[in-house]
């Protein structure tokens, strides 16, 4: 729907929420549950924030190791740190 402005990246990020995708995922996971109308938007919001936090943490890790590229180790470490919110067991 709304296109984000080009902040610092050359590519444009579509902020449109993949509502169909989210609905499908939820249905596949929990077929017995139903998701409300605007619920998927909040799920999308949650995902956005999660990804945001994860990216920030990964970026911090990469900067600490003085790498100019984010490595998968950075991402893993970030996920482990942030997993306390979501994951019962760390990746």
């Amino acid at each position, binding site marked *: 729907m709304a296109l984000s402005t080009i902040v610092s990246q050359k590519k444009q990020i579509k902020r449109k929420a993949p509502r169909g995708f989210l609905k499908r995922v*939820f249905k596949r*996971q929990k077929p017995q549950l139903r998701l*409300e109308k605007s619920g998927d938007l909040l799920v999308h919001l949650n995902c*956005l924030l*999660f990804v945001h936090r994860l*990216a920030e943490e990964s970026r911090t890790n990469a900067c600490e190791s003085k790498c100019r590229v984010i490595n998968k180790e950075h991402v893993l470490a970030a996920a482990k740190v942030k997993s306390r919110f979501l994951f019962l067991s760390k990746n």
Partner: protein
Amino acid sequence: MADHNPDGDPTPRTLLRRVLDTADPRTPRRPRSARTGAQRALLETASSRRLSGQTKTIAKGRSRGARSIGRSAHVQARGHLEEQTPRTLLKNILLTAPESSILMPESVVKPVPAPQVVQPSRRESSRSSLELQLPELEPSTTLAPGLLAPGRRKQRLRLSMFQQGVDQGLPLSQEPQGNADASSLTSSLNLTFATPLQPQSVQRPGLARRPPARRAVDVGAFLQDLRDTSLAPPNIVLEDTQPFSQPTVGSPNVYHSLPCTPHTGAEDAEQAAGRRTQSSGPGLQNNRPGKPAQFLAGEAEEVDAFALGFLSTSSGVSGEDEVEPLHNGVEEAEKKMKEEGVSVSEMEATGAQGPSRAEEPEGHTQVTEAEGSQGTAEAEGPGASSGDEDASSRAASPESASGTPESLQARRHHQFPEPAPPPGAAVLSSEPAEPLLVRCPPRPRTTGPRPRQDPHKAGLSHYVKLFSFFAKMPMERKALEMVEKCLDKYFQHLCDDLEVFAAHAGRKTVKPEDLELLMRRQGLVTDQVSLHVLVERHLPLEYRQLLIPCAYSGNSVFPAQ
């Protein structure tokens, strides 16, 4: 003067001029007169004021634009006529002839009367000026107009005179004179007025803003240069927008590790190309010792040859090839490279280019990866990752690209590791099989898992892109894959939590309250930060309207609570 010289008696004048030239330039007028009279280049020194005046008139005749100057010069000349000096006498002699000629230019110059009228006024001023300071100025004025028969020179003189006048601090009233004098001085010293003009001309290039010498980046040449100079430490920037290329990761790696027996020309060509692309991958896996120097030198040539024919992909590939042979067999690699290089160049130019071009976008990414991999060749870790990335990218590219490019890539893959002797024949045999396998499975597989995987991955890719966007830093492919896995797990956990919350509330439908509770547990929503605040921050307007109840006209609230 020039006018009269041809018209009048050139001999006496020329002689006199020469005499005057040799004489000291008492006043710039001389040069002026000389110029005006005879040739502009000639600068007579110690020009009599009379002469200067005449020259001024002549100059005026020549250059109508310099009337003002001419007038002043003329006036000055007349003023000078009053004085009696040897030079003036000589000048008078010259003037006799020019006098007649003066008429001609004057006649030619219609506005003669006007300037003449002005001249007397100037005469007086000129006299005063003469006595005051720079009699030289006067002659300069005469000279200036004379010399500047064409507009340019006049302007030059003016400018020079102005400059000199400014430098000398001449009064404004005498500017024309002063300028002339100044110019005459300069002219007397230097045959031309070019000197004052030089700064201008010099200034022009300085002032003129040349467009930055930027030319369109030639990727091929660029890559070629990179390879030539050294294994530039490229960043493993994943420009490839294709997120996932895992399925074929393994196969290309195998290819890399395999030493490719030199195939015939066609294959060689592909091999070379494949090697390049694959070199980074397998080379990395083989732990390149980082001896690019040797191979680079030898292969640089080949690379150059290739690069010319190829697009960026090829150049990157060649670079990779260089890296690879380092490990396995320098000699073998060199030989093969050279052989293949020739054939490759031919082949590539023809066939490879087509598919390579088709794969350009991928190739670019591959190239970048290859370069990056090359750069990191010494570093095994990043090298391996880049190699994997390359492999994965290549894997992805074949999938995305048409069949031909895939086949080419496959061939390249197994042709690539020629310089790698260790793997042996077994690998070779597996090579042909693997590329085929690689090609076949994706097609039948995609039909099956595609409906399940692709949409799922497409949806996840959305968040993966968001991740890279939030990170604001280049990321590796493996990192993106890791992000994908994290997202997968995250979704699973999310659904479980929502189920728990809904069940806790005795509902079978997940409501926004459950979501809020989830976010509160995550620490995103606090007493200070409410859900609505987050919604406003991160979601676009359309979604905000749907989520946040807002009062509308008619005492209605949407969405209804």
